């Protein structure tokens, strides 16, 4: 498979109230994106357990995105403050493992920021296409 044709698989965890809505808004606005991303909805970004992220990488994700409401806008008061801490740990472990930083990203996206969501997916997909498949991807998985 040529590098050009290779489509990375990106797992995006979205919170129900903001970033999932942001992805919906991207759809409503018909903001085109590469078909790389699979969204998994949780109620709050604070529910995104590092264990889910590890599992996504081990299953074959070329990148994992952790997204939620902007700080201060959390539907559950301060869930995303806690996300920030969990993410810091996650980032540190993933970095220490020698995984490129582009493969794990955090972004705050509101329900109205459809264009932002779309351009985020475009940017990440572009970065990952340059990097190629994740070194954690098991053989034979697409």
């Amino acid at each position: 498979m040529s590098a050009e044709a290779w489509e990375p698989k990106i797992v995006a965890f979205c919170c129900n109230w903001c970033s999932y809505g942001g992805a919906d808004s991207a759809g409503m606005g018909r903001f085109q994106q590469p078909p790389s991303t699979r969204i998994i909805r949780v109620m709050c970004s604070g529910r995104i357990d590092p264990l889910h992220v590890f599992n996504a990488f081990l299953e074959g994700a070329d990148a994992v995105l952790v997204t939620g409401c902007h700080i201060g806008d959390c539907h559950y008061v301060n869930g995303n403050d806690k996300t920030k801490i969990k993410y810091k740990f996650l980032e540190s472990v993933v970095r220490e493992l020698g995984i490129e930083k582009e493969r794990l990203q955090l972004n705050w996206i509101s329900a109205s920021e459809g264009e932002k969501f779309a351009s985020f997916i475009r940017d990440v997909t572009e970065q990952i296409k340059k990097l190629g498949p994740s070194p954690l991807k098991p053989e034979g998985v697409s």
Partner: protein
Amino acid sequence: MQKGEMFLGWSTKEDIRKRGGSGGLVTSVLAAALDKKLVDSVVVLKKINDFEAVPVITSDVNEVLNSAGSLHSVPSNFAKLIANKNLKVALPAKGCDVRGIIEQGKRNTIKLDNTFIIGLNCGGSMHPTVTREMLEVMYKIRPEDVHGEEIEKGKLIFETKDGKEHAITIDELEEKGYGRRESCRYCTIKIPNNADLACGNWGVTGELAGKATFVEVNSEKGAELLQNAVDAGYVQIQKPDEKGIAARARIKGAMEGLSRKWKEKVFIPMDNRLEYFRKELENCIDCGACKTVCPTCSCGDVSKCTEFHYRGDAYKMSMYHLVRFLHLADSCIGCGQCTDVCPVDIPLTRLYRRFANPVQEELKYEPGMDLRRPPYFEVKLND
């Protein structure tokens, strides 16, 4: 007596002074605590032979008094021994024991208010299996012939039953792969100021050398513990001189400096880290011993690291270890227990520290040194 004060002390009982190291102060403080009902139980070492022992919990004053004597080949951690038992307990503890106990305290498995910790200065401990091999290979003596051991001026000395002393420098031993456990080499907690009392022979000078223990009172509980032993007639104390205090600080500084050098040596930056971790972990048999023994883990048999790890998964890394690397990033105290117990000799502590060092440095968090909440469980971090 109050927090911050320092003393020299020794047992009032002659046979304990004889048997115990450094004047038998720690043994006497423990016995007094039990005798005067300050605590219900005490942790002591029960000897297997002259250089090996196991920790036991006892409520018998005589057993405490008979346990006198210190050993360098007992690396087990006491935190989990007393966890989930709701004890009112006093115990001797190396720096890493103290850290484990405090971390368990934060996780509600030990009531710190009911735990009197007598910290012991510690330059490091040795793994019993390694010690046996070392005796035969380096000292050319049979383990059964050992009668006693001590460390003096950078040398590890074994006394055999025939009364002879056998000395080799620790540097030489460690160069050959013997001597202290790796985690002890880079451990920087030499005087456990996180315990209620910090005891040791550093700073005991002049004619008291070898006959008294230098005690630093680190907390009100520590003051209560020591005062109790004095009032009960178990120990005598006096103020140390300035020279002794300075000598103690000097030794501490030198030891810490050596530890930092070891740390740099062990944790050299490297590329291809994924390959490194994969290789180190490739023999893992998923026995879970490293978790069972971990003094900062308070989970039971079921926990996130175990429940989402399946041997059948064709993953390039183990879910079990990844979750543990993350959960321990802020809380690993570097005690070396996991490395000690691993049946397939994975240098686990070294792997955990690879993840813990950057996190703990960045967050300025030292687990087990105070009651600060582990950052992973904070709601918000101050930037």
